[in-house]
């Protein structure tokens, strides 16, 4: 208090030359570190986004000469895309696919993580097996799935033998169940991702509050609902958000395996954009769709950032004392 007052009086209002040069050095340092990122963004991302924007307003197909010959069409393309029912369906399918597979990944991942939260015999073995699906390349999943889900294939065979009924759905060729099938594939592929995150979150919950709750009379369910789940919130959100965003971008399973088929049953946004651009060669239309999708994703992403930041801050306040002391 009085010491500070004395020091404040004796500090000159100008920082010393040493301090100034130090600050300059730090500034140089910061910029030199950020340079690669800025360069990349400026010379790769920006031109690409600009080109995309250009095509959104200029009609062009590969049959025209250079891309600078494209004619200006104003908002016509936007109108065309926004009134295209196929686009609308693609949006719906993408959202359904992302939501369904995210929830599926979460439920499976959470169940597995919760079962494995305490050490037990064979835990390492199960952990290893459970992360394998995530390590398979998505394209490989696609082609292996084709082998497995063939109507007269091993999956149907196994299920028939186990259940005794003649179980022969056409997983990949029936338009009604094609999309759910791909969702199941996605869940198989990525449940380990949620599993790993949730398991880490569960392991990070301190055991003593749980014991305190138990001895205070809480049943197993109560302990879960009142203590474990709230402390897991940040991690749960993380698992859901990351998975959802990646599921919206999913491509190999829908394209390599089914090319969006049968018919358009699995035509999600990435597939439709791909088709438009590289099979129908409607570059501009593809550009508009890309921009709209990008805008949609940015909105979702901004929302996600806000959510995750809030959770992270809540986590930090909860353990503030510990952080300060430790």
């Amino acid at each position, binding site marked *: 208090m009085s010491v500070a007052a004395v020091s404040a009086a004796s500090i000159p209002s100008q920082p010393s030359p040493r301090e100034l040069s130090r600050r300059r050095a730090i500034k140089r340092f910061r910029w030199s570190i950020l340079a690669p990122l800025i360069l990349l963004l400026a010379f790769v*991302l920006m*031109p690409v986004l600009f080109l995309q924007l250009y*095509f959104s307003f200029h009609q062009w197909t590969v049959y025209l000469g250079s891309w600078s010959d494209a004619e200006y069409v104003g908002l016509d393309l936007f109108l065309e895309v926004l009134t295209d029912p196929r686009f609308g369906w693609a949006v719906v399918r993408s959202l359904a696919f992302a939501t369904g597979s995210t929830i599926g990944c979460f439920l499976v991942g959470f169940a597995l993580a919760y079962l494995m939260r305490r050490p037990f015999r064979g835990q390492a073995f199960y952990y*290893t097996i459970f992360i394998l699906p995530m390590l398979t390349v998505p394209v490989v999943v696609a082609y292996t799935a084709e082998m497995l889900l063939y109507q007269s294939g091993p999956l149907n065979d196994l299920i028939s033998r186990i259940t005794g009924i003649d179980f022969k759905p056409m997983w990949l060729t029936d338009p009604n169940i094609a999309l759910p099938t791909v969702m199941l594939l996605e869940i198989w592929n990525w449940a380990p991702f949620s599993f790993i995150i949730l398991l880490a979150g569960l392991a990070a919950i301190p055991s003593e509050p749980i014991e305190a709750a138990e001895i205070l009379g809480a049943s197993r369910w109560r302990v879960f609902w009142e203590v474990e789940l709230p402390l897991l919130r940040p991690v749960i959100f993380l698992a859901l958000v990351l998975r959802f965003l990646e599921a919206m971008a999913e491509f190999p399973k829908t394209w390599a395996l089914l090319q969006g088929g049968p018919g358009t049953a699995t035509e999600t*946004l990435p597939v439709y*954009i791909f088709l438009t651009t590289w099979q129908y060669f409607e570059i501009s239309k593809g550009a508009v769709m890309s921009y709209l999708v990008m805008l949609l994703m940015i909105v979702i992403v901004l929302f996600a950032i806000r959510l995750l930041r809030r959770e992270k801050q809540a986590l930090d306040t909860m353990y503030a004392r510990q952080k300060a002391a430790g």
Partner: protein
Amino acid sequence: MRKSRRRRLTAIMRYVLLTAWAIVAFFPIFWMISTSFKPDTQWFAWPPVYFPHPPTLSNYLNVWFGAEEYAATQYAISSQKPLISLLNSTIIAGTATLLSVLFGAVMAYGVSRYRILSETRMFQLLMLRMIPPIVIVAPLSLYYSTLGLLDSMTGLILIYFLTSLPYAVWMTKSFIDEVPREIEQAAEILGASRWRTIFEIVLPLIRSGLVATFLFILILTWSEYLLALIITKTQVTTLPIELSKYQGSTEGRVYGRQAALAVGITIPLMIVGLIIRKHLARGFSFGMVRR
């Protein structure tokens, strides 16, 4: 015996449920491996053949080594380039990952010690990676073609570098955060410059974390499909594309061959993944898990 009975029942339930999913998780992988050893008559026989009898290496020999004597079946494949694709994949994924980890670690140091990016910016960086690549692939390929980067390894490396950077920064940051500042201050007093401190002191201390990050990003870039599909044409192929070329260049359903190729793609990744399995949780936490 209420308590102990319940304990035992819970344990049994646990094993049942876990084993059930273990079977679900492993069965496709098992099928892939098993099919890769099947002679062509057993590829899609009905009822399905679970264990090839007799197992054969013909699929592997044909796919990976283009052995002539195995080409004389109706399922001979014209594309003989998997080994080259393997090389390409390794070079591209390896280089891109190396670059992203290097630059990412330095950036992470900047964020951790000098706050060159705020927390919001860090999340924005992460979300950058979450934008579906499909939305930029078209103009990217055009841009690349004007730059002459289309169908080149450099082009692919560049874009993989960009998309991997967010992960690299986030993952290495969590490791750097745990290095005590005092160590750097000690180096400073002894005369080390900032850059030297980073490369001689801090990074070596998080060696294992760097390796884990490297391997993790390697997995992602190795298995990437869409960007590779668009940017590569004839000169360059990565393994995932090679696999889809198989599908395209034949009447499909050469399951044994595809499986042999798939196994070759997947096994290295699995080995890598198993090596770093203890670090996976770390890499995925993004600040949401209290250490």
